[in-house]
């Protein structure tokens, strides 16, 4: 975490006054937010609303990671990037918009793809990680890095008219591998380009994801440990699903882990983390 502070400034008391009066948060919770560093993996449909509300709420430092540049087809859901940002790296565009919203936070753009050689060092610099990525290899990579670094992971996903959210590696709960020891066959994985997505669905999921990050960072605590939230936008239905506990035989978070370092995730999943067309026909 960032350096501890004893008190809020008068400007901070004014800015956050509407949430400081909440007994669940209070000055103590706000001070915790101000010293918390959150890594946002992916500045797309989920990362935009997530980072927007984390910055607004006073998270001290946001790492903004994305290897991609802004395209016009992003703008129906990636609301931090305006038309003028076309062609700019998403990480830089997101940081620029967030600075206009709350200049007291630190925004660290990473215009790169998360890779096994750098992920662990990066994750270690943050307190909470939000997985807003859009492909299977990155989801395994982020989760494994969070296990090895001992960081809670708030993970959301959205496709078509559905969304899912789980908090992994939190308070003794399961990791991504506990739930999904084997990756899905590459030909069963649909991305947003092929399957489509209604823009406000990642909007809703990214906001709920921001809520869970704020609850963890402030000390309120998340209830999504060992729970999955499922959302169906067509039916307007949210379901809370009780999940399995941490698995003793999990390859990375179990009692006798067989994995002690990061691996080659594209080979493991049979798909690429950065291609626009993600399915490798093997």
């Amino acid at each position, binding site marked *: 975490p960032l350096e501890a502070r004893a008190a809020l400034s008068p400007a901070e008391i004014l800015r956050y006054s509407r949430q400081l009066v909440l007994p669940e948060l209070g000055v103590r919770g706000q001070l915790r937010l101000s010293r918390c560093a959150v890594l946002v993996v*992916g500045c*797309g*449909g*989920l*990362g935009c609303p997530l980072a927007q509300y984390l910055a607004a709420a006073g998270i001290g430092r946001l790492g903004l990671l994305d290897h991609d540049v802004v395209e016009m087809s992003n703008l129906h859901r990636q609301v931090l990037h305006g038309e003028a940002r076309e062609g700019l790296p998403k990480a830089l565009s997101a940081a620029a918009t967030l600075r206009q919203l709350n200049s007291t936070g630190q925004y660290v753009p990473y215009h790169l793809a998360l890779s096994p050689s750098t992920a662990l060092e990066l994750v270690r610099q943050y307190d909470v990680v939000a997985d*807003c*990525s*859009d*492909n*299977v290899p990155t*989801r395994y990579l982020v989760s494994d890095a969070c296990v090895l670094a001992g960081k809670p992971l708030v993970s*959301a*996903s*959205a*496709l*078509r008219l*559905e*969304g*899912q959210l789980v908090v992994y590696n939190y308070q003794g709960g399961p990791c991504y591998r506990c*739930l*999904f*020891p*084997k*990756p*899905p*066959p590459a*030909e*069963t*994985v*649909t*991305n*947003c380009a092929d*399957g489509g*997505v209604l823009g406000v669905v*990642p909007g809703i999921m990214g906001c709920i994801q921001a809520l869970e990050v704020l609850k963890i960072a402030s000390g309120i605590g998340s209830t999504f440990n060992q729970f*999955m939230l*499922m959302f*169906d936008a067509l039916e307007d239905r949210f*379901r*809370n*699903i*009780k*999940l*399995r506990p941490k698995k003793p035989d999990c390859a990375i978070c179990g009692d006798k882990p067989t994995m002690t370092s990061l691996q080659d995730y594209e080979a493991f999943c049979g798909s690429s983390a950065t291609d626009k067309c993600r399915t490798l026909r093997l």
Partner: protein
Amino acid sequence: MAAPMSLLVEFGGGAELLFDGIKKHQVTLPCQPEPWDIRNLLKWIKQNLLKERPELFIQGDTVRPGILVLINDADWELMGELDYKLQDQDNVVFISTLHGG
């Protein structure tokens, strides 16, 4: 001899695309000598509901990696997985994990 059983079987996260895009199936399982468990239900689904490319849903005698099975809003791992004995009016959900962002 197990009595006929009524289940609400649901598919989501894209798994419904293997079932004509229909997410909710009110299903009545016939009487059979053995009690119905998830293992038998998967066979029944393969024979009676699956419309195309069964390998994208079932591999061996279980669901393919990346599909979560939920029994009455709980992960099937908590309920005995393939060996769970189905009860009348159970809700069984097969949900594809989403990766989009």
